[in-house]
């Protein structure tokens, strides 16, 4: 008997697809509906990750169906994109084109789901759901929120679980994850919300057939769970694929403490295999469950929340596409929320913003002038602080080679002459009739020399721009 090695699929993300190949499959009418002058321009921006197929409306037309299917295959990410939720609110997960962030922007920021256990009273459930719904942190002018609700079956009672699901659904539009290994419990709950497309957790080696039935009956995506056993995980995924369940999510198990290495290795190995070896069908989104920190032996809630808090960003960095967490403590969620936002930004985006004068609000001749560096994060932080405090002012952005205040002072990029250059180069004296500048508190040590070199009075501002409103009250409005 002859044996043949399976031909390996060449795995490539959309960034490696030639725009010409995309162009060949476009309607070619240059109709401009996508906002580009022609199809070629659209093709170039599509492979650059700036557009998706939805941006070309003619592709939805019946006679373009073939093109759309071919394009979908051509530009499909090696890690499939899967959605759950319904028209009220849905979430896309996965859809990864690359292994490393520097290769191409990561798509679909990791949603964070918070659990609700079904043994809570109706009132408690409403309260928890509302907390999830209302959680909000403002970060450089952006709103960081939680994304989904994971209802857990802790009693094995179908009624109880279904009731919790119903309450959650009534009080929130956020997509749901239904967590039970019991097909009867699952079936009962999903029958109540048949069109919601929740994510079903989970199919295991024990229940996969029944779970597959439910997933197919309700067109819902299904998590395949095999904690710690990657062979079984692959078996399950392959079997369910063969059963015709189209949308799978993989749960390789999240272990913390002394087993954290196994967790990181498994996630890394699964994702690496997708990109380095297309032969194994594991190109599905990965689920991480920092909530595991709360299971196991009794720990103080602080220790559990602490573990969850650092594990969440670690999992995000190591290829998790969806997280389930328990803590609603702000401090425990902040690292994950901020890191998600940062990790999913465009790595090609320059670290620096342009030097120059930026008015904030509607400044006049008497408005204060703040000196800041052209490091993007410094600039956006200061800008967002003065904006949210509704301060009319000018920001004088000095070219510090994209370094933050502290590094720029240490490295002598922010110095009296670079400030003088900015003042003169951008004609600050035309904009204000006073002769005062406010330098960052971290640059205090150059204040004397700066007065000498620039001839402007130098006020030393707060070390952190969050202190600007108070500073102005004490030092500007009274001066």
């Amino acid at each position, binding site marked *: 008997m*002859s044996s*043949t*090695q399976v031909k390996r*699929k060449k795995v490539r993300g959309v960034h490696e697809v030639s725009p010409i190949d995309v162009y060949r499959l476009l309607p070619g009418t240059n109709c401009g509906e996508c906002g580009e002058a022609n199809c070629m321009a659209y093709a170039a921006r599509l492979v650059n990750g700036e557009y998706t*197929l939805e941006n070309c409306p003619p592709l939805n037309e019946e006679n373009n169906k073939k093109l*759309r*299917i071919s394009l979908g295959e051509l530009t499909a990410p090696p890690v499939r*994109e899967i959605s759950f939720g319904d028209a009220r609110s849905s979430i896309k997960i996965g859809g990864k084109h690359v292994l*490393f*962030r520097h290769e191409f922007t990561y798509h679909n920021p990791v949603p964070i789901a918070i659990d609700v256990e079904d043994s809570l009273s109706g009132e408690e459930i409403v309260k928890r759901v509302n907390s999830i719904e209302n959680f909000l*942190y403002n970060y450089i002018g952006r709103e960081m929120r939680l994304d989904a609700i994971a209802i*857990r*079956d802790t009693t094995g009672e179908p009624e109880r679980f279904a009731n919790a699901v119903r309450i959650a659904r009534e009080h929130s539009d956020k997509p749901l994850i239904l967590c039970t290994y019991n097909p009867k419990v699952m079936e009962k709950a999903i029958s109540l919300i048949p069109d919601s497309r929740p994510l079903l957790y989970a199919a295991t080696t024990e229940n996969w057939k029944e779970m597959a*039935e439910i997933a197919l009956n*309700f*067109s819902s995506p299904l998590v395949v769970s095999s*904690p710690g056993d*990657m062979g079984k995980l*692959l*078996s399950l995924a392959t*079997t369910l*694929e063969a*059963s*015709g369940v*189209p949308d799978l999510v993989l749960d390789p*198990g999240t272990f913390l*403490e*002394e087993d*954290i*290495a196994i967790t*990181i*290795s498994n996630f*890394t*190995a699964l994702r*690496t*295999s997708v990109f380095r070896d*297309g*032969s*194994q069908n594991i*190109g599905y989104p990965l689920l991480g*469950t920092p*909530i595991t920190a*709360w*299971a196991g032996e009794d720990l103080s809630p602080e220790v559990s929340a602490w573990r969850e808090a*650092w594990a969440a*960003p670690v999992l995000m*960095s190591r290829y998790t596409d969806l997280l389930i967490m*328990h803590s609603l403590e*702000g*401090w425990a969620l*902040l690292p994950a929320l901020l*890191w998600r936002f*940062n990790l999913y*930004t465009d*790595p090609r985006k320059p*670290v620096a913003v342009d030097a120059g004068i930026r008015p904030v609000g509607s400044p006049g001749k008497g408005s204060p002038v703040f000196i800041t560096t052209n490091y993007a994060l410094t600039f956006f932080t200061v800008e967002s602080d003065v904006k949210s405090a509704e301060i009319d002012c000018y920001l004088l952005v000095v070219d510090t080679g994209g370094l*933050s205040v502290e590094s720029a002072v240490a490295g002598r990029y922010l110095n009296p002459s670079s400030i003088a250059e900015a003042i003169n180069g951008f004609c600050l004296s035309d904009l204000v009739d006073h002769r005062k500048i406010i330098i960052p508190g971290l640059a205090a*040590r150059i204040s004397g020399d700066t007065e000498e070199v620039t001839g402007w009075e130098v006020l030393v501002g707060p070390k*952190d721009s*969050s202190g600007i409103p108070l500073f102005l009250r004490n030092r500007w409005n009274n001066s």
Partner: protein
Amino acid sequence: MSEETRKEGIIPGLPVTLESRLLSLLKGTDKVILEGVELELGELELFLPLNLNGPQVLHQSVEKALPQKERHFPDSLVDMQFLPVQEKYPGRVREVLLGATAKNGGTRSHSVTIGGSTSTALSSLANPYSNPPLISLDVFDMHVPLPRALRANIEDVMDDPGEWAKRNVEKFGADLVTIHLMSTDPLISDTSPRSASETVECILSAVKVPVIVGGCGDPKKDALVFSEIAEMASGERLLFNSVTLEMAEARTLEPLIEKVKEHEHTVLGFTGLDLNRAKELNRRLYDSLSPDQIVMDLTTVALGYGLEYSFTIHERARLLALIGDTELQHPTISASTNAWSAREAWMKMDPLYGDTAIRGPLWETVNVCTLLLAGVDLFLMMHPAAISTVREIVNSYKQGISKVPAHIYDWTGMKT
């Protein structure tokens, strides 16, 4: 898979990977090897899907479920093995030895080695660390304003660098100690090189671990101070933190590295998130130093203030090094105490966000963990809680010979 089959989509609805297997099967292959697991044709037929949903080309296509009778499930689970890809890289990060024992001309009780990686960090249990990442704790030579959460552990020794260093080693288990000679800054106290050197001497006699010497950031003053110390501590294999391209501009780099070479120390090349500059600096250092005397600091920015730039540049640098860029094949360090500059680490916030006593160390922890994943070899840290968490992760890797977790907890059914 060929372009032709890709376009025709012979078996729509199947992920291309499985489709390609079945296709080769249909083309007359009688046996398929799936990553070491052999499946006979008969077995495979069992799971030829009959209920073919439409292609999942676009994420929003919600499929209508097919009537039950058309469903055919495999009788049992397909038996598969997962064989992780073992990535082999041609390059290797150099090892740098820090601290010299009496045998090697110093006075340290032991040396430590950083670097030596042959694969991306924490990528696999099969690739354990050649040299696990180490932790250095900070000491300052003058009174510095520190957040309360950091001050609490060292308040009583802050005026005595020697005692502070001892506390770091004895109580917090520092692998190395960094003495920051901040007072040498011409804009602060302008402490003389001689007196800075005495501070370092005091550290060297207080603790026996390898020592890192930090300057004030002034390219001229640092060179003077480091040169003096290099001579005083001849043979100790100190790590000078840091040497920069600004020193090259100020023409202080060359004389300094000559001294470093003569007295057998090591240097930390600092550049600001720019690999080209990091390489340029290394090329200048190669003029006098042996590559195994060079460590890189590519800049660590706090979470929320650009940590992603640090993360990505370290990932890139390590990957390039492994692929074979010799100018980047140096171990890296991260000044992770920079995490404390994030306002989330020190600022009083709404009670919902907890106290800085927990947010601060958490910020430091996340900074370190993130760069640990990116391959950093040595971390400058301060908070005990962050240190113990990072040790937990590193130890897990060191001991991670078993692939089976010690505990599998059911979080689904737990009661909280």
